[in-house]
Structure formats: structure tokens, C-alpha cells
């Protein structure tokens, strides 16, 4: 395996993170911002799973494999599950805020938000 492949998943995570961040920075629409934030957060899934991966490891579910089989790390998978749930509800909450921001200011551009008071 060439050396770059040793860390390829980590760079994939960084790439997804930067895509999301670039989208957030250049966003001109609040819903676009929320989706970019979701993309940004999904980089953590790749990073977490990459950290826990082990070459040749089975899934950490012992329903059909013998106990003691070499598996990937279940701890990071549990953390990722938490991550997914939190992302889903954060997106739901942010979209509700977008609806309210649009009702109050009549605009969905993030640059118009700074004129809001209270």
C-alpha cells in the first residue's frame, strides 16, 4: 500500500469538512447554509469510522460471529450514532429558525440577518 493510502480516509474527512466550510463561507441562502453545516458535520462520521477501522476486522455484532473475533472499534461507532442523531435534530431546529428569520426579515440571505434586532 503506498504511504498516502495509509491516511486517505483522514484526508477524505478533511476534504468533506472543507467543502462544508467553503459552502458556509460563501452561502447566500440560509437553507443552503444549513445543508452545508450538515455536510461539514458528516466529515466527523468519516473521521470517527476511519479511526476505529482495523484491516480485516468484522463488524462488532456477535449475533453471527464467534465471541473473540477480531472486530473494528465499537466505541467510535456508538459515538457516530450519537453524532447522527444530534445532526438530525440540529438541522430540524435550524430550519425552523430559517422559517422564523424569513417571516421576520423577509429575506433568506445570511448577510441580511445582521440588521435583525432582538
Amino acid at each position: 500500500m503506498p504511504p498516502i493510502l495509509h491516511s486517505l480516509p483522514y484526508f477524505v474527512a478533511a476534504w468533506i469538512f472543507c467543502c462544508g466550510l467553503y459552502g458556509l463561507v460563501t452561502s447566500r441562502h440560509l437553507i443552503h447554509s444549513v445543508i452545508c453545516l450538515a455536510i461539514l458535520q458528516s466529515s466527523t462520521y468519516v473521521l470517527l469510522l476511519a479511526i476505529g477501522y482495523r484491516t480485516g476486522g468484522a463488524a462488532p455484532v456477535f449475533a453471527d460471529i464467534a465471541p473473540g473475533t477480531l472486530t473494528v472499534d465499537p466505541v467510535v461507532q456508538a459515538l457516530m450514532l450519537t453524532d447522527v442523531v444530534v445532526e438530525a435534530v440540529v438541522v430540524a431546529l435550524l430550519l425552523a429558525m430559517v422559517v422564523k428569520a424569513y417571516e421576520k426579515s423577509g429575506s433568506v440571505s445570511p448577510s441580511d440577518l445582521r440588521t435583525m434586532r432582538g
Partner: protein
Amino acid sequence: MTDRLRLGIFLIAGPVFLGLYCYAVLNLPPWGQYRGPYGDMIARLAVYERHATDTVNAINYDYRGFDTLGEEFILFTAAIGVTMLLRREKDVPTAAVGKVADRPPLSEAVRAALSPALLITVIFGFYIGLHGQLTPGGGFQGGVILATASVLVYLADNTEVFKRITSHVAVEVVEAAGASSYALIGVMPILIGLPLLTNILPLGTTGDVFSAGNIALISACVGVEVTAAFLLVIYTYLEEIVTGEIPEE
């Protein structure tokens, strides 16, 4: 801050971040060479200690049960937040102009496909939700699948049926009951002098649906809570679409 300035800051800070990140990654163990002790330890112990074959859920609902309690309340709070943000003030009259049509045109094929699709979704949701301790799944996943059943009703039928199913008060009560039952299960061991969230229920036979003690019960409670929370969010958003005003161009 202008868009140009913001982009400029990003173009400077981004490469700096990437450089530091690359430096960090090159010092990590190579991909596929996981070394941490905790994952291996839990993978070895979960089946013996908790009779749970899905170690991920053994971590979520038992070893890290306290974190998941917090996570569940994040979900609870966010669902309440969405409802509060999008609530309709009853006194404020809403303009009738530009209302979205309540009744989309329906084909007979969609109507006929509804019942089998509903049946499969509900059965699959219960299967995933109740087998969390054995195979990948559990309360969070099962709850989301069950909540999508209501969206099927919305897609294939009119909003009246959807509203009757997701009656607001009942869903709120069920959500609160699901969230609090997790906390109650956690507090129960304290009453008999054990630490919070100790697995006190009988562990059963490994591989059985009624096994793994608290893990199965907590997973089911979380399933109830997640179903209700997502029903609440879906209902609130669809109500926003149905009764929300669309400004005239």
C-alpha cells in the same frame, strides 16, 4: 463583514487548518491499524457481561448510558424547540391569500400502494427498534422508521388523515413519557442502593429478544421517544406548509 472579506479570511485560515491537520494525521497510527484498548475490551466483554450481541448498542444504552440520556434530552429539547418556534399564535389572523392547496391530486396507484407500504414500514420499524440488543438497530433507528410511516400517509392521502393520526396532544404526551421513562429506568437502581443506570433487569439468554436486561428496555423507551419527537417535528413542519402563508410576488 463583506462576502469578499469573509472569503479572504477563509482562504487564509483554510490552508493553515489543512496544514495543521496533515501534520496531525501523519502522526496518527496508519489507517486500519486500530490500537486503542477500549474497543477491544468492550467487544470482548459485552457478550459475557450484558448478554448483548450488538456491542454498539451495549455501549450506547449501558456502558455509555448516561451520555445517551443526555443525547435523548437533546432530541427532546430540539423537538420542543421546533414546535415552539413554528407555533401559530391563535390570535393573529392569517391572511387567506396564497394558501397552498391542501389536497394534491392523487392517483389510484398511490392510494393502493399505501397499505402495503405502511404495513412494511411499521413492521420493519418495530423489528429494528426491538432487536437493538442483537443486531444493528435500536430505538433511535426504529423510531425514525416508525415516524416515516406518518409521512407515507401524508404523501398518499390527504392532510386530514395525517392530522388525525398525529394528534398533537397525544404525541406530546407520548414523547414526554418516552423521555422520562429512560430517566426513571436510570434512577430505579438508586432506590435499591446501586449506581445510576445499573443494569438490574435479568439478562436472559444471549441471542434472545428479551435479553440484555436494561439495554432492550431502554432501547424500546428511546424508540417511543424518537417516534413521538419526529412525529411532532414532521407534524409541525407540514402544518407550517399547509397553513403557512406564501407572500404574493
